[in-house]
């Protein structure tokens, strides 16, 4: 089968169309850019031959670690008697605070994540001490023998409790555009409401793991399942009190990350390295699924209060958003996450006047962390609810109300952080999707169905999406790559990005193959290691390909330039006459096979290795004035979802979704479609079945797949129509004019949440607007239906 054609996903009504993917002409390289090349690891994935950290053969003498966890949400530790633990069978070493030679901290910035507590625990599951033993079971059994005396302290568990207690973890932030309050006051129509939304566990299939191998002197080698090897390296060095140069961190692949392996792996790596240092033996720490879910951070849950003024067409005149997030006990990445929630309060809409405030609340729960979208989804969700409510209030189609408010394609309008939006394509995309999905007719058909169906109600929802691409902490927008060309013309590729399944490695390899004009199989993809490319940023913020692709292109380009200079000199032709053709190079009138030119260059002492570097140009953000251009560009998407609910039980189903997504000029349409579908279904889980539930003592009670329900194959609608937008083109000079795709599609699932809200409204004959918080579990839907019915009865009496 032609590799450029995505197979019909469409047994039943599903299909995906892949643009930008002309079949390769004769003689073209195999696997350049814009081709639907398969994931490089796919044949190994399916054969069980892809090696994850726990699959690496263990060295003789490897120790296994277990972390003991706090039983209290907030307590002083009066005493820890670990004698029995030390004496238990198989135990080699017990690790506590006193054993840490360096700094007792695994935080990314703030110094507030102790590896082992210093007299105080602040969430149920916080690491107390570690046991290194001959087996995992021995370590686990020994840890049970600890005698811990706690003095419990009052615990603040929820956003609302933290707001009531005025317990801010980080300084508040505010963005202002014009005078929103005055604009709302003067508007012909006004409304205000509140939305609570839950967090989300990453549920990467491979849990957190680190394997540390001590070397000579201070040297420490750590295999870590991490999106951020440089941070793990720095953390291990910090905890061991040694220089960064003594620590090497490597990761070939992760079994999923989704943001959960950005800051979190540092704890596992620190403890494993500490055990390895103290015992001189290799040490592995792999968290059990339940421990992983209890101990590690999740998506932030939010409360967002909004107020908006608008005219009779639903055109927004001013809007205010007060966002409050549950950060947990420590800062972690919460500052950036809550910032990004603010940056997305406008979504795709010109609000004209806006005030966005953010409070970052401290609670005695696990420290929440990065999760695909990084606050963006939460910011967007409240805004989309607001748009639905405006439309409802005016009796207009929510599609039209949104349409009246989009940032114009011609530019000239600015966001609440004063960045001009110059690349808005959302109106065109939404119009195309409405047409291709037959939106208007289906909306009418749903109303007709509901009129005759007393128990089951259908709903339809639309979501436009604009998502800012770049780390909003400007300096993180840099990347490095290392490319070697060997004498046989084969290429070794390394860069700072990590592979968690998203297809980054194959995309960057395609870029290098394209640059050298050699077949993709001549490019070797290699594990990410801090020893080859230093000081990298996390593979996060959807930026992996944008940054590392450019860095690798620059590295390959540098070698290519040397080859050009060499060939031009050697054959006495101008440099313009050295042209890289598929697997060969034309020099003047002669063609030389790529490996032959490489061999010649080697014999003539030309360097065939280069480091590449890239920093995103022209972006900045000033916190003082809450203004700037934090994003290089925006990615856009459009979604329309249809659902059905049962008003007796709250049971519900997504029956159809149509998605049109803008990935610019796709580097790999198959990989991009995979990101879109996977992100959408993950977002659907966040908004429907995935509920994190803590009991009153602060214990997370949904800490395994038995109680925490991510979508299954049956939750994916058969009728799921995903298309890449064929006009997609990045206006800025990104890698081959592509656009980032990792995070944005997750937010397209908000269309399903809007649809559920619409279906609940139907249960009250569209007389009152529903109160439906997220996730929309059967329980929340049923209670929202009851509430709607009660309010309608009140209206009638």
């Amino acid at each position, binding site marked *: 089968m032609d590799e450029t054609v*995505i*197979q019909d*996903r469409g*047994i039943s009504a599903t299909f995906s169309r892949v643009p930008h993917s002309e079949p390769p002409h004769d003689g073209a390289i195999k696997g350049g850019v814009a081709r639907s090349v*398969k*994931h490089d*690891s*796919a*044949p*190994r*994935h399916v*054969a*069980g031959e892809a090696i*994850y950290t726990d699959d690496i053969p263990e060295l003789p003498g490897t120790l296994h670690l277990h972390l003991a966890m706090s039983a209290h949400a907030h307590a002083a530790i009066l005493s820890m008697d670990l004698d029995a633990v030390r004496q238990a069978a*198989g135990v080699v070493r017990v690790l506590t605070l006193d054993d840490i030679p360096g700094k007792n901290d695994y935080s990314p910035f703030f110094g507030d994540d102790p590896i082992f507590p210093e007299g105080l625990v602040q969430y149920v599951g916080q690491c107390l001490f570690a046991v290194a033993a001959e087996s995992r*079971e*021995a370590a686990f*059994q020994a840890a049970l023998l600890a005698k811990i005396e706690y003095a419990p302290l009052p615990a603040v568990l929820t956003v609302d409790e933290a707001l009531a207690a005025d317990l801010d973890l980080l300084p508040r932030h505010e963005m202002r555009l014009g005078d929103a309050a005055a604009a709302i006051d003067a508007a012909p129509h006004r409304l205000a409401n509140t939305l609570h939304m839950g967090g989300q566990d990453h*549920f*990467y*299939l*491979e849990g957190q793991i680190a394997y540390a191998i001590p070397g000579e002197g201070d040297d420490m080698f750590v295999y870590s399942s991490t999106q951020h090897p440089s941070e793990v390296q720095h953390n291990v060095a910090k905890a061991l009190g040694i220089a960064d140069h003594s620590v090497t961190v490597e990761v070939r692949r992760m*079994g*999923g990350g989704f943001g959960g392996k950005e800051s979190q792996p540092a704890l596992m790596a620190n403890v494993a390295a500490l055990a390895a240092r103290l015992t001189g033996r290799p040490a592995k720490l792999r968290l059990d*699924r339940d421990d992983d879910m209890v101990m590690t951070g999740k998506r932030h849950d939010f409360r967002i209060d909004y107020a908006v003024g608008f005219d009779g067409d639903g055109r927004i005149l001013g809007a205010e958003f007060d966002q409050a997030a549950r950060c947990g006990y420590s800062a972690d990445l919460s500052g950036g996450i809550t910032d990004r929630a603010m940056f997305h309060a406008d979504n795709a809409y010109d609000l004209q006047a806006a005030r966005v405030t953010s409070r970052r609340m401290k609670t005695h729960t696990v420290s929440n962390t990065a999760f695909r979208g990084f606050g963006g989804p939460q910011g967007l969700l409240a805004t989309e609810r607001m748009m639905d409510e405006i439309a409802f209030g005016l009796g207009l189609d929510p599609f039209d109300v949104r349409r009246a408010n989009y940032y114009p394609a011609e530019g000239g309008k600015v966001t609440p952080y004063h960045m001009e939006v110059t690349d808005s394509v959302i109106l065109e995309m939404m119009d195309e999707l409405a047409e291709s999905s037959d939106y208007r007719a289906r909306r009418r058909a749903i109303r007709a169905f509901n009129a005759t*169906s*007393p*128990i*089951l109600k259908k709903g339809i929802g639309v979501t436009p999406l604009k998502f800012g691409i770049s780390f909003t902490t400007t300096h993180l927008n840099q990347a490095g790559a290392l490319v070697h060309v060997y004498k046989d013309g084969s290429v070794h590729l390394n860069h700072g990005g990590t592979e968690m*399944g998203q297809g980054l490695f194959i995309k960057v390899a395609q870029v290098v193959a394209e640059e050298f004009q050699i077949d993709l199989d001549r490019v070797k993809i290699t594990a990410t290691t801090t020893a080859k490319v230093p000081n990298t940023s996390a593979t996060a913020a959807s930026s992996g390909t944008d940054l590392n692709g450019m860095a690798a292109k620059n590295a390959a380009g540098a070698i290519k330039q040397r080859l050009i200079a060499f060939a031009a000199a050697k054959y006495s032709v101008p440099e313009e006459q050295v042209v890289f053709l598929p697997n060969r190079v034309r020099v003047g009138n002669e063609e030389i096979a790529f490996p032959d030119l490489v061999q010649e260059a080697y014999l003539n002492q030309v360097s065939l290795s280069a480091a590449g570097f890239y920093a995103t140009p022209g972006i900045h953000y000033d916190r003082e004035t809450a203004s700037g251009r934090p994003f290089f560009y925006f990615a856009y998407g459009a979604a329309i979802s249809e659902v*059905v609910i*049962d008003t*007796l*039980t*709250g*049971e519900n*189903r997504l*029956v159809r979704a149509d998605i049109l997504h803008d990935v610019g000029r796709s580097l790999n349409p*198959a990989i991009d479609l*995979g990101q879109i*579908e*996977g992100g959408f279904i993950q977002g659907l889980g966040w908004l429907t*079945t995935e*509920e994190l539930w803590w009991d009153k003592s602060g214990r997370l*009670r949904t800490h*395994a*797949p*038995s*109680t925490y329900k*991510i*979508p*299954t*194959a*049956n939750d*994916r609608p*058969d009728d799921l129509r995903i298309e890449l937008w064929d006009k997609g083109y990045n206006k800025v000079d990104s890698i081959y004019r592509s656009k980032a795709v990792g995070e944005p599609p997750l937010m397209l699932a908000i269309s399903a949440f809007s649809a559920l809200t619409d279906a609940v409204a139907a249960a009250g004959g569209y007389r009152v607007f529903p109160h439906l918080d997220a996730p929309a*579990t*059967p*329980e929340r839907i*049923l209670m929202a239906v009851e509430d709607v019915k009660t309010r309608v009865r009140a209206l009638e009496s």
Partner: protein
Amino acid sequence: MSDAIRFLLGDRERVLRDVPPTLTVLEYLRRHERRTGTKEGCAEGDCGACTVVLQEPDGQGGLRRRAVNSCIQFVAVLDGRQLLTVEDLKAADGTLHPVQQAIVDRHGSQCGFCTPGFVMQLYSGWLGQDYSERPEVKNWIAGNLCRCTGYGPIIDAGLAALDAERPGTAETTALAERLEALGHGEMLHLAHDGPHGRQEWFAPRSVDELAAIYLAHPDAVLVAGATDVGLWVTKQHRHLATLIDVTRIPELAALRDTGNELAIGAGVTHSAAMEALSALHPDLGKLLTRFAAVQIRNAGTVGGNIANGSPIGDLPPALIALDARLQLRKGREQREIALENFFVAYGNQDRAPGEFVESVTVPKLRPNTRFACYKLSKRFDSDISAVMAAFSVTVEAGRIASARLAFGGMAATPKRAKAAETALMGSAFGLEAFEAAAVALAEDFQPLTDMRASAQYRLLAAQNLLRRFALENAPAGRPVATRVLEIAHG
């Protein structure tokens, strides 16, 4: 008696002696065999990443096969069987199996960690021709979680591989014969001295043997599918001194249709019971497809679901509504009780030390009886019920003559709603009667709030299920659609 586990790992014969009987198949594969293709995702049978396939002779020259979660299966399950893992699928020349190739071709792997489990689950279905339509594939893989792909490419791959040629009869017969030769027909008895003391495993071959051993070891843990006991080991880290495997006993695995009744041996798996229960009423079949996942239904048993006494087991309310009876045995003594009387209190059943459930007998529905069962959970597939309800209502001369309304998740045990039943008696079948029953239901139950649902939801939804039942069985008028799955799938 045999003191060794004999099985085929792929095509290699293995003999295991002196291993801990509660060593899981997954640990055995990853640590003892260094077959690391099989992954641990949850160690509780809820994600499918560790799926492997077991094959055994079916006694008629063919093979029976099932996919199971290796994370909660103990190594003794391998005795006399063939264990196939993801490493076994490639051809000798390195060619991928059609199922593997289809996943590659359709971009069905991203991070790849769940992939070996999907490969094995699809492989078992491909081999057994267990699915041919899209909804069947989706049900087939509903116990395999993938966090990356959104499933579309995997579903497509499952369908795409269907046409590939399967092993011929000769090959199957040869393997069946090899496995027959491996089988010893004797009781397996394993003993192992570990750091926490001695562990013994008995796998009796007849009910009489079981009865005698259990009487001699009344503290032993009876293990069938290990879908619960497996977690005692992997999650609770309990030391189990004596275990008795009840899955090697033909009588316990028997299903008997006596015309008016269905007798289900305690060792009948949910997969094996599905056809017979569906025939009793389609709702029972639908319930079973939402009962955990294929891998769990292939291991878990009807007897286990009853005997563990869980307040949230899905079968007991359904069987109580059907007025099922339980046959118990201790030594040579047998007795029979109504299933509803088995559940005394939370964690307490009417079962003496050394006594075990032998079978459950389910009367068939009469023509004038209306029956339904409903399961409510956050997720449709592979989830534990927030509320499970089963209703059996008989109408005579236009009036409700008997009503059995049984619920799970509403109390500390599966329980009938006596006040609601009373409210129905003598009324005409219709919404009015069930409204009264719904009101009375509040006297029957004071449910708990937990992570699955609040007390308020449980009661309201349970009441609404009575209303749903009335609507679905309305004697006249237009049928009212009440089930989203039926609408959603057209």
